[in-house]
């Protein structure tokens, strides 16, 4: 375990160090102390590393992650694990808005609450939130799954494409072209597996699932051509 103190070490040096490792050989485990809300910690990591950030992290922590297992013990700022490709990014506290934005793979876990636009424009990532999510969760999302163990705010799943939104609590309102779907065996299996992977305790049978109405997929324009 290598400890890096962000009070003493430059962020740029930390990220450059992490970029130089693939996790297969050499150093593998890192503990980052005194993050003090700094932005862009452990972004662009491309290796099987275990990184624990002790405290609160700012915007984009774990951004574009590949393969690494990153944990923030406190809260995180906006754009947690944005465009994540693979690996796991976990926040033990709460996360600000745009959690997992545009993520293409991997798993993002927020043990507390996630703010607005959680999973915005997501493209394949799985997101599990232990608490509540704010408004416009998964706005314009294209692919992947979101699990919300608490409540969802306004306009859940606005303008989504092919993704599943599992919510245990109340949904304040559904967004445009989002509707409740039948929780079939396939969806239940996805949910059960995600809760298990995220190590979040909840009863999958208590969830409802929402998905695309598919009414916005094509313009009503058979003759919009000049």
């Amino acid at each position, binding site marked *: 375990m290598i400890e890096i103190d962000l009070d003493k070490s430059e962020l740029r040096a930390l990220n450059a160090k992490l970029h130089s490792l693939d996790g297969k050989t050499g150093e593998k485990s890192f503990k980052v102390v005194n993050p003090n809300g700094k932005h862009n910690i452990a972004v662009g990591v491309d290796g099987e590393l275990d990184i624990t950030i002790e405290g609160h992290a700012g915007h984009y922590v774990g951004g574009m992650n590949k393969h690494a297992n990153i944990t923030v013990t406190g809260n995180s700022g906006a*754009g947690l694990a944005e465009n994540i490709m693979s690996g796991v990014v976990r926040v033990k506290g709460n996360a600000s808005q745009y959690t997992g934005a545009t993520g293409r793979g991997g798993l993002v876990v927020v043990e507390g609450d996630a703010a607005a636009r959680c999973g915005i424009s997501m493209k394949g990532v799985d997101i599990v939130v232990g608490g509540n999510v704010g408004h416009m969760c998964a706005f314009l999302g294209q692919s992947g799954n979101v699990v919300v163990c608490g409540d969802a705010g306004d306009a859940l799943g606005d303008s989504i494409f092919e993704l599943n939104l599992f919510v245990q609590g109340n949904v304040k309102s559904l967004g445009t072209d989002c509707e409740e779907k039948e929780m079939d065996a396939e969806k239940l299996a996805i949910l059960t597996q995600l809760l298990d992977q995220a190590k979040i305790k909840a009863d999958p049978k208590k969830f409802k699932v929402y998905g695309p109405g598919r009414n916005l997929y094509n313009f009503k324009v058979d003759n919009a051509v000049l």
Partner: protein
Amino acid sequence: MSEPTDKAQLGEYEEHPELQESATWSRQTIKEIQRAATEGIYSIRGGGAKRKVPHFDDLLFLGSSMSRYPLEGYRETCDTDVKLGTRFAKKPLHLDIPITIAGMSFGALSAQAKDALGQAAAAMNTTTTTGDGGMTQEERASSKTLVLQMLPSRYGMNPDDLRAADAIEVVCGQGAKPGGGGMLLGQKISDRVAQMRTLPKGIDQRSACRHPDWTGPDDLEIKIAEIREITDWEKPIYVKVGATRTKYDVQLAVKAGADVIVVDGMQGGTAATQDVFMEHVGLPTLPAVRIAVEALQEMGMHRKVQLIVSGGIRNGADVAKCMALGADAVSIGMAALYALGCNSPKYDAEYRKMGSAAGYYDAYHVGQCPAGITTQDPELAKRFDAKLGGRRVENLLKTMILEAQTLARACGKSHLHNLEPEDLVALTMEAAAMAKVPLAGTDWYPGKGSF
């Protein structure tokens, strides 16, 4: 509503010189009203604004006679190189010419057309740019220096491509549709395009109009820092804006940490958007250049943060005029497409079958481009010869440079960057006011002095 110029599209509305046509209710206007009444939806097309706006044609160079000393046309040095990204990037770009190829997506264009643009740019040691579909292997392979766009949709975005790019352009707006996202209709969403964009095949895709993970310039500053961290501070980072509130957009882009700012005027092209958007939103390129340069000068950042101007750049005169107004480089999109063979008379019969004609074709969104350029149909794309297309764009770039050098030498300048506003006059009051250069024959422009 377009100007009544595209007569080939007027169909049954014939020319009648003996009758008086209404200026308000022109045939074009009536045709559009009747189209709207039939279809019940706005018209979507490609290209850019068709309306006439003050443009670089309204400016002239003064050249030299006695008071200025010209350089010999073909012999004396007139350099054309430009460095982009000198502010923060560890690896700034050093291009031989100040004309770059603008972002056009794989999806909007065939892979072959993207390949041709890459070849031309590589041959001239300039850049080509990805688009809203992400980076294709073909264009990375054919482009010596490739700019990766980071757009609101983030289709195909991934850290490997960020690291493989030579520069990164954060697109906040586009001249053809500032405030609007992209559009790619179902006909062009092939298996490969759908896969690159993580979308179901055949849907009508609207890309987002604003970025998903930042709001406003304070966040953009952090976002740019994130991209720099991911790429270890190597790559120049551009911010592209559509010309609208240009002074503030440019100054905020500087504040957010841009190395290079791209300002795209309203004549800039697009693969598809609403006609009403192209014709009624944005600033023409001409005033945008001057506003952007003054915004940089006000911050003491002119030439430190480089300015690339695009939107209706057609020839070497446009290039030289942009540079004289203070741009560091220009970017071409539509001109490159026409050089590739778009709108060639060779395909007139096929354009006519689609209700258009050579010289008028702008239905890029339909994906049936007979020249094989704005299509994803493999049969049509096969018609396009990437090697020949690349050569043609290379020739256009060479010609534009020779023309720009000709004008610069006539003004006594040994580098295109030495051109200055004092080398220009305007032919119209509007152009004089917008470019802030004197109306020809006077020492005055509107807004200067007491008028």
